[in-house]
């Protein structure tokens, strides 16, 4: 704590840092700690990327090689199935490219459905009057307190009875409209002024036209945030695919990675290829995150907005 005392004693809490401010020991110390923390948070990513550029022998050497001495993109070509490889056992002949596509399809359908259907429901909860509105909303909130593990077995049985095991339906249908998304969109919709909706009605807009042409454009930032974290949730989802899929051609990226990793089944995959596949799998989310950070943070910390 001492560094904070010194730092804040040396400089006022806010306001631009004036160039004449003496560089105090406390401020250097604060920055040093922030930098060390930064290295700790970044290092695993750095290690993954640098390993993905190395041949296997350069990973299994002592002392470790921090910078790849003979970097190449071979691992990427190998994992994509573009160059022949005797190091990797693609289960069922399915490569990273196919799995990447699978994950994309599942996440895109879910995201589109969730944004549209949750916005509709959220609009009804926030702005329309109907019988049972509060009771329905409260029952939804109540179930959000129950951890997902409770629904694990019942959902498996339901999917088995529907003959949906080994299909994408269990990963797509329930996610088309989630309680969290409805809750999120409702909070956003309450900020839309009633006068605006009233005016649309007077101008002759029906209920759907009012939603689609007047309300939806206003809550577009909320939809964008929902779209981003909904996509991320499905892209990263592991438990569902693990339970419902065991045909390699249906695998999503996280399941593909887990299967490549020795613990699950088949011939173990060398670590440099695992790191390469891992990096490819998180790349889309990292890129979206870096360009649309605001929406990510808004959505992921939504619970704290009371």
């Amino acid at each position, binding site marked *: 704590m001492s560094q*904070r*005392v010194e*730092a*804040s*004693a040396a400089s006022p*809490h806010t306001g*631009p840092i004036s160039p004449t401010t003496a560089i105090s020991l406390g401020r250097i110390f*604060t920055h040093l700690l*922030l930098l060390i*923390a930064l290295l*700790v948070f970044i290092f695993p990513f750095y*290690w993954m990327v640098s390993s993905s550029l190395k041949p296997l022998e350069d*990973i299994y050497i002592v002392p470790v090689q921090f910078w790849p001495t003979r970097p190449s993109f071979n691992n990427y070509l190998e994992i994509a199935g573009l160059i022949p490889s005797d190091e990797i056992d693609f289960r069922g002949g399915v490569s990273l490219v196919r799995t990447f596509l699978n994950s994309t399809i599942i996440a895109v359908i879910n995201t589109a459905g969730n944004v549209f*259907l949750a916005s*509709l*429901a959220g*609009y*009804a*909860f926030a702005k*329309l*009057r*109907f019988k049972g509105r509060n009771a329905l909303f409260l*029952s939804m909130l109540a179930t959000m*307190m*129950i*951890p997902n*593990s*409770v*629904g*694990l*077995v019942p959902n*498996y*049985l*339901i999917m*088995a*009875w529907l003959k949906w095991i080994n299909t994408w339906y269990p990963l797509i249908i*329930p996610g088309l*409209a*989630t309680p969290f998304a409805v809750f999120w969109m409702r909070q956003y919709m309450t900020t839309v002024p009633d006068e605006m909706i009233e005016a649309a009605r007077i101008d002759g807009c*029906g*209920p759907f036209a009012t*939603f689609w042409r007047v309300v939806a454009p206003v809550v577009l930032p909320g939809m964008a945030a929902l779209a981003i974290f909904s996509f*991320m949730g499905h892209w990263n989802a*592991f*438990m569902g695919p693990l*339970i419902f899929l065991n045909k390699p051609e249906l695998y999503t990226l*996280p399941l593909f990675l*887990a299967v490549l*990793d020795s*613990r699950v089944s088949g011939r173990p995959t060398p670590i440099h290829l695992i*790191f390469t596949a*891992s990096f490819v799998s*998180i790349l889309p*989310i990292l890129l979206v995150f*870096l360009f649309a950070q605001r929406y*990510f943070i808004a959505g*992921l*910390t939504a619970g*704290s*907005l009371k």
Partner: protein
Amino acid sequence: MGVVSTPSTLGPASIPPKSRYFIWEKAAPYVFISPFFILFGIFGAFPILFAIWISFQDWKSVRSSEYIGLKNYARLFTDENFHIALSNTVILGILVVPLMVILSLSFANVLNRPIRGRVIYRTAYFLPVVTSLVVVGILFDFLLGSTYSPLGSVMQTFDIEYKGFLNKGEFIKPAILIMILWRWVGYNMMIMLAGLQSIPYELYEAARIDGANGLQSFLYITVPLMRRVIAFAAILSTIGMFNIFEEAYMLVGTSGGADRAGLLMGLIIYRQAFQSFNFGYASALAYANAVIIIVLSFLQIFATERAASE
């Protein structure tokens, strides 16, 4: 609604346009919420109730089961794996929650100031939060488990015998602790930052004029005003501990690793359900887990409110 229920020989086509509009107006809210409620009913609400029934059954297969009363719940008292998982989860929770709060509040407090490069720091600290948990597991499995990791090299330069952190029971919990903190501190930091931004700057200004130093204004302004936000973060971390699955699965497997030191609640529920196919017992475990989570959350809320009223 009168228009609908009146028997009409003319058929719906002859209802005047204004009334048709009126019906749509009345029905619209239900039409708007029904896709959500149908899905939510089948895959969200019904399973929660259905799980209670499942937990009273002994399942022979997906289709046949037999009522066995409370036997699945009685088994909780004799199941060694459940006791180990519960105590592991509680021990880790006792370590994780305070560390998480302290670290995230400290980072938030520093980065709430106009410090140079704070956007870069924030972005970097938040990066693990958007990373797939499977990848997090893979990375930490190597970085903390392999002798060919940078850590292994460091150990070797100092001539310390090192076989990786994950082979020995006593090192598994610290490894999981580090992984959880790495993944979630940035997330909690953002929650704390949102809270800090709602504290009026004038309060700090007034305290400074009255001669308070940085530590004093942190302890007497920030912490009391952040009490609810801190409690919220603590509750989320507690709930998270009882729900951890992916990272632990990748790091130690469903066996829980050496000495079962990494066996957690999330792992045994999965194991009973989908490796032993004890659907009934898995549901009893999941309900026990849910009750523990809800009780702990209420205790934390209660403690926060009492502290606030004093």
